């Protein structure tokens, strides 16, 4: 476990959530088929993570280290609580009828849901058996791991493309861009519905050339239903402080309305359905 200080209660990210007395002792279980996994937290009322009202399950474990990450408390696998798939599905089942009535579904986010691929797949499959629409929110960095059978459990991929420029991508995430682009192309070939998400961070990702690059890459893809521009915000900054991490964006302001509009227009000009 990393050295996480107690977080502000009431945050949907707070660590109290999901830590349950029925969670088995992780050391007692040897698991390679995804019957168990690490969950960070969940939220039941998101309108931002796919169509309708979403139950969002945050898994822990991520290989990227994005400078603007608002969930740094999910980076390490063992930041989460070790729980069984059955436990997770029972919890989701408590919400399934309401979520269905609200035209929503399950979105697995994180962290990076493909870090625990088998676990994620089992949860998605279970949710689908309940009749729920399923989505994953991913950086695509581990896209090569997502085989056909995994993708067949996913109705929608929320794919973060943080930059079109490998240098910028590396500076922002400390990782390579190529796997993400590869994954996007595969999803296009498979005609898998995708919402591309682009986080707009002033001074980091707002360069017009950077935006144009993504727009030109995405525009021809018929499977991309939306490009969503997500303005950077400071709501995760308290976690960086709580965890004793150095937060480089301390003084970065959220983008102005004008800047957001400029970027949306850039996407639209390239032929993307953007918002």
């Amino acid at each position, binding site marked *: 476990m990393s050295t996480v200080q107690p977080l502000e*209660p*009431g*945050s*949907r990210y*707070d660590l*109290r*959530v999901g*830590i*349950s*007395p029925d*969670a088995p002792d992780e050391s007692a279980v040897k698991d390679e088929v995804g019957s168990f996994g690490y969950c960070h937290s*969940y*939220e*039941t*009322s*998101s*309108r*931002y993570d796919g169509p*309708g*009202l979403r139950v969002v399950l945050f898994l822990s474990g991520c290989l990227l280290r994005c400078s603007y990450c608002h969930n740094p408390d999910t980076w390490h696998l063992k930041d989460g609580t070790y729980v069984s798939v059955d436990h997770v599905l029972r919890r989701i089942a*408590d*919400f399934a009828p*309401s*979520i269905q*009535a*609200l*035209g929503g579904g399950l979105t697995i986010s994180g962290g990076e849901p493909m870090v625990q691929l088998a676990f994620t797949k089992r949860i998605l499959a279970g949710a689908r058996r309940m009749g729920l629409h399923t989505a994953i929110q991913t950086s695509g960095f581990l896209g090569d791991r997502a085989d056909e059978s995994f993708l067949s459990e996913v109705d929608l991929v929320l794919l973060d493309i943080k930059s079109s420029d490998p240098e910028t991508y590396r500076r922002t995430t400390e990782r390579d861009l190529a796997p993400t682009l590869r994954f996007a192309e595969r999803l296009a070939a498979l005609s898998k519905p995708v919402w591309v998400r682009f986080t707009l961070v002033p001074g980091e990702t707002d360069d017009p050339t950077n935006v144009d690059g993504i727009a030109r890459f995405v525009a021809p893809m018929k499977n991309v239903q939306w490009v*969503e521009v997500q303005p950077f915000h400071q709501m995760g900054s308290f976690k960086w402080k709580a965890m004793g991490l150095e937060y480089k964006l301390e003084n970065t302001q959220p983008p102005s309305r004008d800047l957001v509009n400029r970027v949306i227009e850039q996407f639209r000009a390239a032929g993307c359905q953007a*918002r």
Partner: protein
Amino acid sequence: MTASAALRKEGDAGDCWRGFRPGDWRTSISVRDFIVRNATPYTGNEDFLAGASQRTKAVWAKLQPYFADERKKGVLAVDTKTPSTLLAHKAGYIDRDNEIIVGLQTDQPFKRAIFPFGGLRMVEAGIKAAGFEPDPAVHETFTKYRRSHNDGVFDTYTPEIMNCRRSGIITGLPDAYGRGRIIGDYRRVALYGVDRLIEAKHAERAQIDDMWPTDEIIRMREELSEQVRALEDLASMAKLYDRDISKPATNAQEAFQWTYFAYLGAIKEANGAAMSIGRISSFLDVYIERDLKAGALDEARAQELWDQLVQKLRIVRFLRTPDYDALFSGDPYWATECVGGMDLDGRTLVTKSSYRMLHTLYNLGAAPEPNITVLWSNHMPAPFKRYCVKVSRDTSSLQYENDDLMRPFWGDDYGIACCVSAMRLGKQMQFFGARVNFAKALLYAINGGRDEVSGDQVAPQTMPVVGEFLDYDDVMAKFDTTMEWLAKTYVHAMNCIHYMHDKYFYERLEMALHDRDILRTMAFGIAGLSVVADSLSAIKYGKMRVTRDATGLIVDYQNEGNQSTPQFGNNDDRVDQIASSLVTSFMDKIRKHPTYRNATHTQSVLTITSNVVYGKATGNTPDGRRKGEPFGPGANPMHGRDSHGWLASCLSVAKLPYKDSLDGISYTVSVAPQKTHLSDTQLLDEAVKAFDVYFDRGGFHMNLNVIDKETLEDAIKNPDKYPQLTIRVSGYAVNFVRLTPEQQRDVISRTFHGQI
């Protein structure tokens, strides 16, 4: 004429009833029958609505300085000399040329009257707190010649009840002021006229003349005579305003005026905590429709009637004391009006006037009163649902209650008394009983009946918890015993209160607008349900070490388990079941004890703003709540603990069993307005869906605020910028700037959810 023939006599209504579809309502007093036969359901949208008229604006402008002054100074004027009755004050006006609906509680707007029949001490405390001097003549009368409700109650209270009052385990009891929560069927005056109502009362009386005079029969005869006198006084009161209400109203204008006079009579005669107006919109709509068809009225005039009636409902004032204000903050009086709902045949009761009533919030601006309550049915027309949600978003002034849940219990002509108490209009009343501090009761159980703050032995001495840790089964057994004692003491106190209230402070007029034979409920209540549920969950799923003070009193708790414990408000059955079973268990215990006048026991999970006061008086609780911290309001989860979004929070609350809390389950949700990529219409549609889901899952009540914390913080700093900022608290709405600083902080500390 025989008595029963008089009851069923065809009214001599002249042409007052021209054009109305006939039915049973013509021969017996049945407003419900009149409405279902004559209301015109409306399934369209709000586009037909009209703005405020010049006259409305003129009257409203005259009232603004009073509102502003009141915010600064509090009570503006008191008539300290004249105990309020129907005829105590001469006619009063705001702006005689422009008022189309007339009538004030006293001879001037914002001048408060006194009601010493409830209790002189309360009156004098209120007068002094307002900065005026009590009148010696009134003092002499009510000490030397005349006893009050308050005197009677305290003659019959036991030392045990007094201890409970003092320790704060039972508080807010209506033992020194009007009990309220009675809704006269004010519509009867418009539909039948006073003469016909008096005739019916004589007939009701004649039927019991040959019955043996038991206590109940004697009481009933006296009450019926009082009711007749009240109706006669009501007609005289109307004469002061040059109106003759002995006959039915002949047009919409008169129907509004007659109905309002009836309500005005009620608030001149009783200072109940809650004085609901009932369910008048769709009733009065019948008159508007008739006049519109005849060309005697246009939409602007129709709206004008609503706006001006609502203006009157916004300036009802009672003189209260500081203690009272702490429990019911912001000067509320719950002039609750219900709109919407369905009738028993499956037609909607939404009419154009349901819209007009909501539209007053635009024409006059947001306001806490009248306490507009949407009776939400999933079957209501979609455009109306959308309009309600829009009004909520723009004004935070509405509350919602589940018509589909209540209709099977109360039919299709019930109103809401106060916040959440449903009652069949003219056929049911309640004996209001405030609430007990449920969290304190749990602490008494742990401490063998000693109060955790004072150390006094309040409940009978029982075995306290021994040992270092709390054991769930042990605590539950002890709590069960405490609840038994509390229930019995509570019913005991309530019987004393309502016996004396009937005797000394009987609501003649409100009861004259009821049938003789009515259902009486006795409404008990609990505060702090989520604190208790979370505490018991902590004991069950954690490892709670106790800390004792020098006298052996357990004063603190430490969870030494390595895991946090389930908390109410997250749709987690482990704790939600505890909460639900507590509601049922306490209700069952209350039901064991006979009530005054054989009233039916009911219960509410409702706090008004008393969650702050109760919290202040309660020590540390095992759930981790610190001494003095507020409880969650109503049935709400504790602030900040419902951490998985509004859906999870809603679903927990929706599990609480209505059948065991028939007096209502209050739930307040605050939602921060957020920018999303959804269009306005989409957002409203999504919110409507959310309501449908919540109510479909058995949710009872939704008090919805759409506001962000920043606005509230700014309003604390700059109250003058936000004169009309309205927010919903537990079961009612208040002007935010009129809350006490403590309550303002409490509101801000509540969970704010993302966009619904």
